[in-house]
Every structure is written in C-alpha cells, then in structure tokens.
C-alpha cells in the first residue's frame, strides 16, 4: 500500500522506517510545518536524516499531502483533547477522498468516535486504530476477533510511566516524588508527567475500548479518572502484607470507564512490572484473555500501525 504519514515524531518516523520491511511504500511524510511528497516513493532515509539534524523534513507544503496518490493516511500527529484537532480534520479529508486511515493519534477515536464512524460509513475508505490502545499489544484486534458483543469488559494497565513509578515504589519502599524524579532521569517519564500520572492517558485508551464495545457514546469527560499522585510508599507496603500490590487499573465496559489505583494480587496477571502494559479481555464464552507487551515506543507502536495497514490490504 502507498502510505502518507502525517506526524514525524517517534511513531511517524518509525512507520516510515519500517514500511518497506512490511511491504509498503511511503509516498509522503509531513510534520506540522514541512513535508516531502513523491508519488513514486520518497527517499525515507534522506527525510529521516534531515529530521535528525533538525532540518526541514522536505520542501513541500503539508497540506499538499492530501493531493498525492496515497492509499492509506497514517495519522500520527500528537493527541489533542476536546475537538481532537487537527487530527480529526486530517481523517475527515482522507475519508472524503475515499482513502483508508490508520490512526496512532488517540484524540479522534476517544473524543469524536461517532462522527468518525459516520464519516467512515459515507466513505469507500476504512478507519483502523490499533496503535491507539497499548502500542504493540493487539488489544483492539483481539476484541474485534472475539466480536465486541461477546466481550463483557476490558481491564488492564495501559500506562507504562505510572506502572514504572508504582513498581519502583513497591520494590524500593520509596515515595512518589522520589521515584518520579528517577523516572524522569531515565527518560521513562516526561518533564511534565501530568498526562500519565493523573490517569488521563490511560483513560483515553479505555474510552476508546468502551467506544468499540458500545459502538460509541464515550468521551474523556464520561470517564471516572483518578491518578497515582496521592499514593505514598506506605500504602504499597501495606498492600504487600496481604499479598497485593497497587496498580493504575483501567476498566472499560458498556456501562462506563473507570481508571484509578486499585489493589491487585501481587502475583496476578495484572501486576505487570516496569513499563510493561497488559490488557485482560473478559469474554462471554471464552473466559479471560490476556495480552501483555510494550505499550509505547516508536517501533512498537509502528508495528501496530503496520498491522492495521496489512489488514486493510487484506493480508
């Protein structure tokens, strides 16, 4: 398939880098100010090299990407809340031109799901968004394969930063502030970690799952969200006395979305450690299914984008 990639952050760059390996061709790559477009395939290595040296990725106008001969738009611009712009407009434009869209950007699927599905219904193109939930973990495709009506709930750990902090607090008996500083030194937590530690990032993913289970109806404001900032090391020690630990757990059902610190068995499947993520898919007829893996990272998330592209190509 011929891919046009919007967004040249970790995910966009990794998709460009790995596309050839997965049998696809990149015909456009754009960041917010510049683009490189060539219907015969762009020079990916050259564009990535320019990006690495802080040069413009190309000399074309990002808006011209939509005029090119692409088959799949890969939307990998940063997630925005509220109206989910400009991501939503990018998707709208591609669908109106009857092209496929693969989203790595959580905004449009979490905040404007029904509008997205309505646009898709009027288009010859399809929308896929595996990469928005749990990076490399096949969460949404597993729900799709089980058929959403047979899934009663999805639970799990879908934020590596919060999980890393809680794991270190439990292992070392340290307090939140101390471990957060360490996570920032290691590059696990952002300079402003609010989005991760207050539960918003995990909530967006569980809102997307709830939308898939219910065919829409949920946005971030419908989720009951609590973060981990108030959890002291002593709470984790007390939990351990009872063979439990504390994890930032999300739950998506047809009734709602809830994210918050919860007690889980220390040796249970949901007590993943470090930056690892896990989803537990509770099904009507097949018990619980678990998938665990790397929930973030450029190449990891790019593999989810490229599996979506492969599904669109019918492979």
């Amino acid at each position, binding site marked *: 398939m011929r891919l046009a990639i919007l967004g040249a952050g970790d995910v966009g760059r990794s998709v460009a880098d790995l596309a050839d390996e997965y049998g696809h061709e990149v015909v456009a790559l754009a960041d917010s100010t510049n683009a490189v477009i060539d219907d015969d395939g762009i020079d990916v290595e050259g564009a990535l090299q320019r990006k690495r040296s802080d040069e413009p990725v190309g000399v074309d106008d990002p808006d011209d990407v939509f005029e090119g001969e692409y088959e799949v738009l890969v939307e990998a611009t940063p997630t925005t809340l509220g109206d989910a712009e400009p991501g939503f407009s990018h998707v709208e434009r591609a669908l109106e031109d009857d092209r496929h869209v693969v989203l790595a950007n959580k905004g449009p699927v979490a905040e404007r799901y029904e509008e997205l599905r309505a646009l898709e219904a009027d288009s010859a193109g399809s929308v896929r968004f595996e990469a928005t939930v749990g990076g490399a973990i096949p969460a949404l495709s597993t729900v799709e394969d089980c058929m959403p009506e047979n899934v009663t709930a999805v639970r799990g750990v879908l934020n590596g930063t919060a999980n890393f902090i809680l794991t270190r607090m439990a292992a070392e008996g340290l307090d939140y502030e101390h471990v957060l500083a360490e996570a920032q030194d290691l590059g696990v937590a952002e300079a402003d970690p609010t989005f991760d530690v207050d539960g918003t990032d995990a909530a967006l993913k569980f809102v997307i799952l709830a939308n898939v289970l219910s065919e829409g109806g949920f946005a971030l404001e419908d989720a009951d969200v609590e973060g981990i900032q108030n959890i002291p090391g002593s709470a984790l020690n007390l939990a351990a006395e009872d063979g439990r630990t504390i994890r930032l757990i999300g739950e998506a059902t047809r009734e709602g979305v809830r994210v918050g610190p919860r*007690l889980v068995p220390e040796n249970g499947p949901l007590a993943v450690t470090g930056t690892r993520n896990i989803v537990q898919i509770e099904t009507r007829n097949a018990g619980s299914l678990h998938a665990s893996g790397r929930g973030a990272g450029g190449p990891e998330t790019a593999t989810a984008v490229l599996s979506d592209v492969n599904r669109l190509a019918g492979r």
Partner: protein
Amino acid sequence: MGDTPTPPGDLGTETDGGVRTYTVRLELVDEPGELLDALAPIAENGGNLMSIHHERGNITPRGHIPVEVDLGCPPDRFDDIVAGLRETGVNVIQAGAERYGEEISVVLVGHLIETDLSDTLLAIENETSAAVLDLSLSAPQGTGDISSARIRLAIDSGRSEAVFETIRSVSDEKDLTVVEPLLGGDA
C-alpha cells in the same frame, strides 16, 4: 427419609445415627496441595467427605478459588471441623447455614489520624453490613502527616458494591484516597 442420602443442598438434615450433612464453602489459594491441606482437618475431626466442588473457573474477590465441600459428621463435631480448618489457615466463607461472606481489603490514604480513624471505621461498620476484621496502619512521617491504613473487611457475599459506596462517601468527607480491590475477571 429411610436410606435415601441427604441431598447436598439440604443443609443440616439429620440422618440415621445422628450424622448430619453440612456444606462448607472455602477459599483456597491456587497452589498445588492447597486442597489436600484444606481437607485434612475434616478427616482428623471425624468428618466424612461426601463431595467436593472445586470451582476452578471462578475467582473470589480476593483472587482465590472457591471450593464447596459437603461432609457428614455428628453435630457436636462440626464446630471442631470449622475450627480445624481455620487453624490451618483456610478461609471459611460459609459453614452450614451460617454465612461469613467474603473478605476484602481496602487501603485508605490521607490524614487518617487527624480525621479520627476510629470514627471512620465505625462509620463503615455502622452504615454497611461489613465487619472490620483487622487493621494495619503505617504512618512513617508521624501521625500528623499522610498515613495509610489497610483494612480487612468481612462482607456478605454480593454486598461489596454497597460497602464500597459507603467507604467512598465517608472518605470523600474526610478527603481520604481509597484504593479499592479490583473485583471481577481473574484479577
């Protein structure tokens, strides 16, 4: 009744010789040998095992496996059997007709001492059907700072949501953070 065996669901029916049938519900940790260890006190106290229903597919709120055991014994031996089970560390949820419910732990975080911890516990006990079984408090920065408490509660089966509602509202008033257990699924 004659020689007809007592159906397991018919709790406490007397049969010939003064032996009665009892159903005991237990919670077991999912580890090899746990079931065998749990059954030993029954035989040792003169009980006769009739059937064991090991609900492998189900998980209790504490993440353990519920096991239902039907046994026969003279009524005066039954209390010894239950006591024997408890001595070996087995959690007895229900013995005969008496229900002990489920055990659930929650962790509270905040100014627990200054907001009167005993009042918090009383409110939980008085406004719900829960009983506080034990409490573990950790206040590493002294009692004037943020502290944490783990509370183990006995709750009638199926009443956990109502109990959590109460704990949430009591905690809201006192600005405490509640870390609830994750129920449902095989957490």
